[in-house]
């Protein structure tokens, strides 16, 4: 593949790929402002409203941060949606309304996430199963097990835990600050640690990374664990937000495919090795801005779906079209 790529040495200076997510974000924001002013609904431009827009996509953002890690190592995780449902149900069943059980419930959810991620990672790196198939299979298994046990809202989240979704620090929702902290943490890990640079190395060229002495299997497994733990956190957030766990919340939000779309719109390459967390955050903002634009403009919900599909493809095409590689 690399024969066709990089035929000409890259010019220093402005690098389009790097700024594409930001350009898209600015474009989406401009459209949002334009539509709001154009339809005479300036009330949508207040600070509170912008915060509210962000608040709607926190679960997607948390999941997408995890997804960034697996996509960076050239893997993918389709099991996040069912894992979100599973952890939300598990947490709310363990809590069952009693504040004393909050800590055990959080631990149980995180452990479930870690175990699923560990299994995914081992199947992908140990058995060499294509990650798409491995995590798709895992998703079917989780969803099957889950719907064998629960078919409706299960358990109850005590008021003390609902703070996670509804609490506020000053004008900012607690969950938004949490998301920001998570993104900073992920950025720091990717930017400053050896593990972070190993991730880029493995994603860029696994063979070369192995010859350079990196334990590639371990990096892949660890990335999958991070992704699944992030999905578990998203599950906890949704349980707190809905005040109970339901076995369909993950599938309803299409968190598996949407988180992948967000990551890719944010400029992280599906083939691995290039991209980062801030692009993912930009992708999440673009997604929620688009949704708000549709809401303000009063687009019919089915037409909204059609436009959404087109926008995902168009956004990826926006920078992919410049690559000289043959894609499949």
């Amino acid at each position, binding site marked *: *593949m690399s*024969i*066709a790529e990089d035929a000409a040495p890259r010019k220093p200076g402005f690098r389009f790929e790097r700024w594409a997510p930001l350009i898209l974000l600015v474009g989406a924001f401009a459209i949002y402002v334009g539509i709001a002013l154009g339809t005479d609904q300036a009330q949508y431009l207040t600070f509170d409203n912008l915060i509210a827009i962000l608040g709607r996509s926190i679960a997607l953002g948390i999941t997408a941060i995890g997804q960034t890690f697996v996509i960076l190592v050239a893997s993918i995780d389709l099991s996040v949606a069912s894992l979100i449902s599973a952890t939300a149900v598990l947490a709310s069943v363990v809590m069952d309304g009693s504040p004393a059980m909050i800590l055990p419930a959080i631990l149980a959810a995180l452990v479930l996430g870690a175990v699923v991620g560990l299994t995914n990672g081992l*199947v992908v790196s140990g*058995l*060499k*199963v*294509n990650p*798409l*198939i*491995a995590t*798709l*299979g*895992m*998703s*079917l*298994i989780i*969803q*099957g*097990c*889950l*719907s*064998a046990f629960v078919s409706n809202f299960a358990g109850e989240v005590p008021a003390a835990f609902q703070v996670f979704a509804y609490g506020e620090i000053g004008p900012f929702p607690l969950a938004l600050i949490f998301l920001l902290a998570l993104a900073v943490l992920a950025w720091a890990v990717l930017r400053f640690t050896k593990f972070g640079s190993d991730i880029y190395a493995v994603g860029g060229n696994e063979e070369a990374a192995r010859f350079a002495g990196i334990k590639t299997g371990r990096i892949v497994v660890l990335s999958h664990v991070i992704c699944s733990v992030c999905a578990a956190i998203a599950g906890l957030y949704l349980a707190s937000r809905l005040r109970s766990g339901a076995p369909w919340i993950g599938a309803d939000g299409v968190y598996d*495919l949407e988180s*992948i*779309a967000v990551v*890719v719109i944010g400029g992280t390459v*599906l*083939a691995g090795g290039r991209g980062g967390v801030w692009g993912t955050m930009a992708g999440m903002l673009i997604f929620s801005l688009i949704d708000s634009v549709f809401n303000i403009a009063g687009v*019919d919900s*089915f*037409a*909204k*779906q*059609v*436009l*959404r*599909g*087109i926008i*995902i*493809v168009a956004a*990826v*095409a926006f920078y*992919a*079209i*410049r*690559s000289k*590689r*043959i*894609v*499949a």
Partner: protein
Amino acid sequence: MTDRADPSGARERRRLPQINPVWVLLAALIAAIIFMNPGFVEPTGYMNFLKRAAPLAILAAGQVYVITSGGFDLSVGSLITLVVVGSSMLTNNDPAATYWVVPVMLGIGVGVGAINGLIVCFLRVPSLIATLGMMITLNGLAFLWSGGAPRGYLPDTFRFFGRELIRDVPLVRFIPVSVIVLVVVVGLFAWLMHRTNLGRQVHAIGDNPVAARLAGVAVNRVRITAFVLSGLSGAIAGILLGGFAGVSTDVGTGYELQAITAAVLGGAQLLGGRGSVPAAFGGALALTAIFTLLNFLGLPQPVRQVVQGLILIAAVALAMHRRKQTGT
């Protein structure tokens, strides 16, 4: 290959892996079904089985082209939905309309495939994202077209393909029309894949697109053809499914993943270079046989999901293991 006077034992060992394991799996599953339900050996038993398997088998035959060429087609499931909903809107209970609605639907299938291929080739969007966007778009279109609540029936002339039987056939007493469609389509796809230049070129671009291009393969044209064939198979499967399932907006849900599963069970290699239409047909039959068997055992839907997930992972893990052993 230098010494042709191999001891027969060594030759035996080399020939053994040439039987695709999917046929062994299928034989075992059919034996199990016959054991559970002796009526299966009657024409009613196996013809109904083939009839039920027909849409999936046709889809898998189309999907193999895209997978072998190195991509994915996630849009076929919602294409089925669009075809079923669209035919019910277009025929509008008029039996005479079938004669032009069927070609229109096949045209839609070809068009959707062509758009997928063009997006992948010229906008350079990875097929996972491109067909995902198409899936979302087509689902939205199906809703939009039907106004959210599909109405009416498909006329009997339309349901002919999925439902009718041709009676008084010697030897087997009757043949469902869908089985004839199945044999013709799979036969045609298999011929195209394994006996023509196109098939060889599909394998070539999946294995190494740069090498294929240097060898003079029109990579884009072949890739677009692969997507068109997949879209066409989706439209045919939709017409068959319209015959035996009712009109609803979720008839096609999940079929894209089942088609990929069937192709993978048949030994198709994800990300390209290896795939066989007859084996994918075998994979589709095996998958349907598994579902039939689980039905006989009285297992509920969730268990079916878990089993499908486990089989998916196990099949790919086994294939990778064999590949490592044979060193290819």
